[in-house]
């Protein structure tokens, strides 16, 4: 095949890939992951229960998913989004995750920091020391259903 023909074939392939990729991104509601809308977090049905209980819970009108589950500074936020995005996609595509879903240590630390961002002054007597050490007091240890869960 001559250069022109090859170029045409390759252009069709690359164009097809771009088109298929764009459609998959659209079908997978890829843009929603750049928003802060909690509905984006239940695109895949795994989080239906969490979403339902959060929407009836005490934090519904003050904090959405990302307010508690992501850092607020730009770079850590993007890093955490990318990291969790990777693990969520991998887990959901290959269906190889533990059920019930248990929070990972890095995400538990982010969550604890988020509790303290709003409630820190109120509870500084309780969590004076490190809030990330293994034996540190975790707010959700007792306030388990405060964000979402069967008994919010």
């Amino acid at each position, binding site marked *: *095949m001559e*250069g022109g023909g*090859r*170029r045409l*074939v*390759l*252009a069709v*392939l*690359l164009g*097809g*890939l771009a088109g*298929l*990729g764009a*459609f*998959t991104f659209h*079908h*997978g509601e890829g843009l929603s992951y750049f928003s802060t809308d909690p509905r984006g977090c239940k695109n*895949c*049905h*795994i989080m*239906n*229960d969490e979403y339902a209980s959060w929407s009836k819970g005490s934090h519904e009108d003050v904090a959405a998913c990302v307010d508690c589950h992501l850092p607020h500074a730009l770079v850590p936020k993007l890093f955490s989004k990318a990291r969790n995005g990777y693990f969520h996609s991998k887990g*959901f*595509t290959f269906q190889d995750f*533990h*059920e*019930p879903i*248990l929070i990972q240590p890095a995400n538990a630390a982010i969550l604890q920091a988020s509790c303290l961002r709003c409630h820190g002054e109120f509870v500084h007597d309780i969590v004076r020391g490190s809030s990330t050490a293994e034996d540190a007091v975790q707010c959700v240890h007792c306030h388990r259903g405060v964000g979402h869960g*069967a*008994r919010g």
Partner: protein
Amino acid sequence: MSILSALTRSRWSFAATALACAVAMALVAALLTSIFERKLEARNPYVRLVEVSEETTDSAPWGMNWSREYDDYRRTVDSTRTRFGGSEALPEQKIERDPWLERLFAGYAFALDYRDRRGHAYMLSDQEMTKRVTERPQPGACLHCHASVMPTYRRMGAGDVFAGFEALGKLSYADAHAEVVATGTSNPVAGATGGEFAHAPGAFALGCVDCHDPRSMELRVTRPGFLRGIRALAESDEPVPHLPSVEAWRSGPRKEAYDPNVDGTRQEMRSFVCGQCHVEYYCGPKATLFFPWERGLRVEEIEATYDATRFEDGHRFFDWKHAETGAEVLKAQHPEFELWSQGIHARSGVACADCHMPYKRVGALKVSDHWVRSPLLNISRACQVCHPYPEAEIEARVTAIQERTHALMQRAAAAVTDMLDALVAAQSGGAGDGALAPVRELQRAAQWRLDFVAAENSMGFHAPAEAARILAEAIDLARQAELAARLLGPR
């Protein structure tokens, strides 16, 4: 275009690039179909292929509509084993493992045959073959819980469930069983779409229709024993903080009697359906089957109810006369609902089904696991939803509770055995009935408490402190009886 021309310059670079593009497209397409499938999962929860009715006692047609639940339900035939319970092919004789049970039940059918529990699938066939039924006359009331019996109650009561319940309960087991077989099932005709049913004789173990409304699939309570028992409990003053609808009914106008199917919360129903059978009861033949709940659910409250109950001939209630001592004693059945009611899980609003039929995910669906079994066989779904700790730690906590209960139970059994020895010695030493009467009362109370924990199917887990309290009372009462008997015995 320079990159494109570079990639197409040689035959090999063109081929390699084309191959890479093809592989990438294939992967993207695979991802696309995966996303598509996951989205599909979130659609139809079920397709109603056939009609089922109140008369469809055979669960197989229900399984055509609700195949996920039915598949799990059928797994109750599987053998499972935990430290303190099993379900193998005709399971181990409890009575061989704990020989004191034979002394405890001397003169009663449980001394003939007393085995570990098996799965729901065996409830009718195990009853048909136990020596307690084949070698001793038993009443038809037993079928209240072991067969899908509601259509038979309606037929025999000409539509009145309670009349049918009384009538069937008075028959012998064999006659009542024949009635259930004659009632049979109304199964949907294969291929018919207009709700046509065909009758077939046969007796079935409890199935879908016993807990679910065939139109809405809502949970409902069907058993007359439970309906009467819970009504009596509601009308008592006994605090039941774990049953909020009962407390709410009590504070209302009380115009209508408490009805779990009307008043019960959705979460309560997930325990009530189990409480239709996993309870303490008397099922005949000297009185109609009843749940002794009118004074409350605790061991001494049930005992007080029994003590206040009179048979038709005016005699005080008892299950059987102990063969060694002549005491009129009580047999505990399997008071799971009652012991659970005293525990922290009940108080926290955790239903039977939360641990024994935990929710699981099937695709996008949240399905209650109908393979009813020990939570210890399913720790991740049964326990970790609320207790986010490693499985080994959770299991160790349960084991600690059960082994402590078991150790205490063996001590109580030793005390009861010593009590029986002392009573027998006092009798053969010539002590009279008048002198022995109060000792026999102590025997009745002591062995009722031991049996209450031994017959209950959680080895104390449903309410650990309550189980320990009951066993401590059993030990105390048995030793009191032993001391009293020794004072009457030969010097």
